[in-house]
């Protein structure tokens, strides 16, 4: 099964490549820097701790850039923060923080001028940690990964310089870090050095059963001035990280936001 996925992913890259038949000069080629602010609903289920869902509002702040020439390169750095609670709690005392770095290159696989499809590799580094003091006042919970996967990007050009851009990312190979299921020590080191050390500890290679995420984002781009574009965005992120000797961490985030191209 994994081999099939691998072939299906890599074959188009090999057939088309940077100099593939589907590439064409794009008059809009340039570096676009952007910042975005997204709000939404975040749900986490840290089953190393308990099987209840913690829910809360979240906010993501992103900086990135994209270079669209023959192909498409995208980079973004996202900082996310949310306060959460289970149905059993009155106040949102739990918190979840994420830091995501992503770089991708998409090779253009279509000839059309209105609809373009890009496919290429993406590297993602994600630090995701939670502190749920009502349930565990002594330990941090994290689900970090460095992943190589594929990114699908769809670009639909509309009238009046409007455009729809949709991205879908999935991982193929990862290394990841999860806390041990049974931590036979009382308190995590909560100094900055201790947190960094924890987040990079217990690193294992991952199969898709260990690390799987689906990052879907679609955005409506529209011009505001002659030279400026902005976009409304919607994103859906589902992350599942599970060590073989532990229980899964699940996270589902639905967000809408505004993206400003600088």
């Amino acid at each position: 099964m994994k081999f099939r996925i691998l072939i299906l992913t890599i074959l188009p890259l090999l057939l088309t490549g940077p100099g593939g038949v589907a590439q064409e000069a794009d008059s809009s080629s340039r570096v676009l820097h952007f910042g975005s602010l997204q709000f939404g609903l975040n749900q986490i289920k840290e089953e190393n701790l308990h099987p209840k869902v913690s829910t809360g509002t979240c906010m993501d702040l992103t900086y990135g850039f994209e270079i669209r020439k023959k192909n498409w390169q995208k980079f973004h750095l996202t900082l996310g923060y949310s306060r959460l609670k289970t149905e059993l709690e009155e106040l949102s005392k739990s918190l979840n923080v994420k830091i995501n770095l992503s770089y991708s290159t998409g090779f253009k696989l279509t000839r059309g001028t209105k609809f373009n499809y890009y496919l290429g590799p993406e590297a993602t580094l994600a630090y995701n940690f939670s502190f749920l003091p009502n349930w565990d006042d002594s330990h941090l919970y994290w689900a970090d990964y460095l992943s190589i996967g594929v990114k699908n990007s769809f670009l639909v050009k509309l009238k009046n310089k409007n455009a729809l851009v949709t991205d879908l990312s999935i991982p193929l190979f990862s290394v990841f870090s999860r806390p041990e299921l049974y931590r036979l020590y009382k308190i995590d080191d909560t100094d900055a050095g201790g947190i960094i050390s924890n987040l990079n500890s217990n690193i294992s290679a991952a199969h898709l059963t260990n690390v799987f995420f689906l990052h879907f984002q679609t955005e409506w781009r529209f011009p505001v001035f002659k030279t400026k574009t902005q976009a409304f965005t919607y994103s859906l992120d589902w992350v599942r990280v599970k060590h073989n000797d532990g229980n899964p961490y699940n996270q589902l985030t639905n967000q809408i936001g505004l993206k400003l191209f600088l």
Partner: protein
Amino acid sequence: MKTFKRYFRILLLLPIVTSCLKDEPFKLSYEGFQPVSGTDDGWTISTPEDEQMDRTVIDEAYRLVYDDSRFTMARSLLIIRNGKLVAEAYPHDKSDMDRIANIQSMTKSFTSILTGIALKQHILDSVNQTFYSIYPEWFTDNPEKKDITVKQALTMTTGIDFNNSEDTQTLYQTSGNSVEFVLSQPRIYDPGIVFHYHDGSPHLVSAAIQKRCGTTFSEFANQNLFKPLGITDWKWEAAQDGITFGAFSLYLKPRDCAKFGQLLLQNGRWNGQTVVDSNWIAEATQPLVNTHISGAPYGYFFWIHPAYHGFAADGHGGQKILVVPDKNLVIVYTAWGYTSGDFFDNFNELADLILKSCH
């Protein structure tokens, strides 16, 4: 505009279409409280009927523990009567039976019993001995605390303002001398007068025994308490300077916690041998100081429950080893040891039911 409207509709639909994460139960489904037999840990299994207990009332208590909205982080409930294991269940995971877990401040009661053993072995001279007489070199910066005695530590009346919510973590993580850290906290009361519960006092005691016995306090416990009771799987954390924490971080299995309770019920005797002096148990488990916590009096690192005519080791998470000599009964309740107090739940409700079940 038409395209935008269509796009916007799809956007609105997406969050609805994408399913949310779902809650699952905290606990396994209830399958009764029959103890697991065939283990070689020394426990004799019995039934409620044979030990003059009402099965239906016990069942009520276990159903309460298995209720998903109650005792949410429960890990085990064991009932021992007449020295026999009558009921046990592990609502979170059946393998919790064989897994050591942090019993948190129940550790303090183990430190109390080990103090009694150390006194019997003349490792300590008496409860009125000052810590200064044992480790004077650690009082250099805090000479005003030279008069604090072992007894004042055992009854949480040292007058030291050690604040668990902040200082426990520092004690746990300090790379310096852990005893000096405890002693460096300000004194807010004269010693021997006001009860002030904290993790510093038991550390002074474990350090004293460790200093005198020439081995770690945890090894002293192993030789003099765990081995006689047949407790082989345990862990006890130490500060970075090597002094075993007297207040917390002892990791035990629930059945081994029950052995500790049963040892107290048997006045310190186990398999025909005296492990701890009965006079010490009697002294340690009598009301010695009034407290501001739930109105319960305190002995030597034991909570006294006059309503049950019993005493208990209490730990974070709502964990408890309750000993009721009048009923020849030990109840062990363990839970996830890191939960906020809001989720401890009311152990007395369980205890009331279990006591009610005793004929």
